[in-house]
């Protein structure tokens, strides 16, 4: 293809996006579009899969049968989200094995929040309420993103996430209506998850790369700082209902802006965790790599069996 022809295709492509048409896997797309989508969707998929671990940590210790079942179901949903998202990546010509390889080698990233430990049962509430809450704010706009498979996956993901968020909030509510110890447990969880949740919305706009291009492709509709403000504005009243205190002495309502002002985020901590030095980065990677390596013989067996069956079938015909 000549440079001219490519340029022409690109123009048609951008026009389609501008018209809010969905791009489908078999459509022509710029290489950068393909790569960016593989990167973002796989990162999202990895976050779902790694995100199973901190919550999985409490399945065996959930305090009631009802909560145990709900937690199991939630973690299972995350595996399901991982599955759709890896499938969406596969439509762009990259295999799940390759993506796992990128995760395990540390080449691919996943959401940093999952590198914090789940220390008490209240963390199951806080994660649902805050982490899923922040995730939804990040993800709702993606239900209208330009790449069809991603947009459709996000519709389903967001629906389930919002169910998870309500469930998390309800855990917090139960704790806050409970004994003194339970209320303390809830406050403690909020104290530990608040700042990492704010960091989930990404670095400040000044430090954020990719933004302009992502806006054009509808991979992003608002800046990180706008999303963060939205998250805070939405969450503070919820904390009030719980009777919990947001661990930020600088937090206060600003009549003029109609938003909450808030204190400084510890970006050093953010970057340390992103770079692999958070409290549980090593443990999370070890768990994933162990699962993968210990499961190799099972995957090999399934493959070998399928091949044998196919062969037998062919011979029979």
């Amino acid at each position, binding site marked *: 293809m000549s440079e001219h022809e490519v340029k022409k295709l690109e123009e048609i492509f951008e026009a389609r996006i501008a018209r809010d048409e969905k791009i489908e896997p078999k459509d022509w797309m710029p290489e950068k579009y393909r790569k960016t989508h593989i990167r973002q969707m796989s990162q999202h998929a990895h976050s779902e899969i790694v995100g199973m671990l901190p919550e999985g940590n409490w399945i*065996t210790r959930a305090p*009631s*049968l009802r909560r145990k079942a709900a937690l199991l179901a939630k*973690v299972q949903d995350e*595996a399901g989200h991982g599955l759709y998202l890896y499938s969406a990546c596969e439509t762009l010509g990259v295999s799940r094995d390759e993506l796992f390889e990128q995760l395990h080698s540390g080449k691919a990233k996943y959401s940093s929040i999952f590198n914090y430990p789940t220390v008490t049962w209240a963390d199951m509430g806080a994660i649902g309420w805050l982490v899923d809450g922040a995730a939804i704010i990040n993800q709702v706009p993606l239900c209208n993103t330009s790449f069809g498979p991603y947009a459709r996956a996000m519709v389903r993901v967001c629906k389930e996430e919002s169910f998870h968020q309500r469930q998390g909030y309800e855990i917090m509510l139960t704790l806050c209506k409970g004994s003194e110890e339970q209320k303390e447990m809830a406050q403690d969880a909020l104290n530990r998850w608040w700042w990492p949740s704010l960091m989930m919305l990404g670095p400040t706009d000044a430090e954020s790369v990719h933004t302009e291009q992502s806006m054009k492709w509808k991979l992003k509709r608002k800046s990180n700082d706008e999303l963060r403000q939205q998250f805070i504005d939405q969450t503070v009243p919820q904390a009030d209902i719980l009777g919990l205190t947001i661990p930020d002495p600088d937090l206060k309502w600003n009549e003029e802006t109609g938003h909450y002002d808030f204190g400084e985020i510890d970006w050093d901590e953010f970057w340390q965790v992103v770079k692999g030095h958070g409290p549980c980065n090593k443990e999370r990677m070890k768990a994933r790599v162990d699962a993968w390596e210990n*499961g*190799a013989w*099972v995957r*090999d067996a399934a493959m070998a*069996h399928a091949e044998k069956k196919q062969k037998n079938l062919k011979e029979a015909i």
Partner: protein
Amino acid sequence: MNNNLYNYILGVADNSLILAQRLGELCGHGPTLETDIALTNISLDLLGQTRSYYQYAAKIKGEDATEDSIAFLRLEREYKNVLLVEQPNTHFGFVIARQFLFDVYHYMIMQQLQNSKDLNLAAIANKGIKEVSYHKRFSSDWVKRLGDGTSESNQKIQEAIDALWRFTDELFDILEADQKMINEGVAVDVSKLKAAYYEEVSEVLKEANIQIPESKYFTRGGKKGIHSEHMGYLLADLQYMQRTYPNMTW
């Protein structure tokens, strides 16, 4: 309170609880996302059945009993599950073998329990039979897949079947309470299922190129509350929250 009925229900329900707990440990650590999701499904089905049984048992027991007090606040010697379901997740072959050896049995029980004179139990079985039928299909398929996969997988599933075989005979033991409930047409007479069980199990193993263990020595005790040394650690985790924070709502 009808003690025999209560004890009979716990005997059936504890199997589901403890196996669900074992499967819950695996969540996020399986060989593929698909098996993770499938095993979690099974765990969820078993938990659902457990809750129905315990809710019924709590009604029979009366006082302040709830599904959670029954699930979490008994002593180890009071859990009546068979030894098979408490065995650890040594490797995926053990997970599948344990599931398979239990599912074939579980399906037979559910099938018969549908005809129980106790309408609550019949209803639980009626609701559960489809789920358990799916479990059995899943675990049988995987037994075949591993048995007929690579030589490594054949060896690993064989190892697991060999190791767990000695826990199968206990499945067919009948306690005093059970016998009384059988006589009343409430309970399933598991002793009558034994031959059909070994036949069905053997058929699948044969198809999977797995040797059927020949040992005549079996280990029992779980039904009488004498568990393996794995059980205490499982319960320490299971009961942790309820023991540490008594009398609270979650």
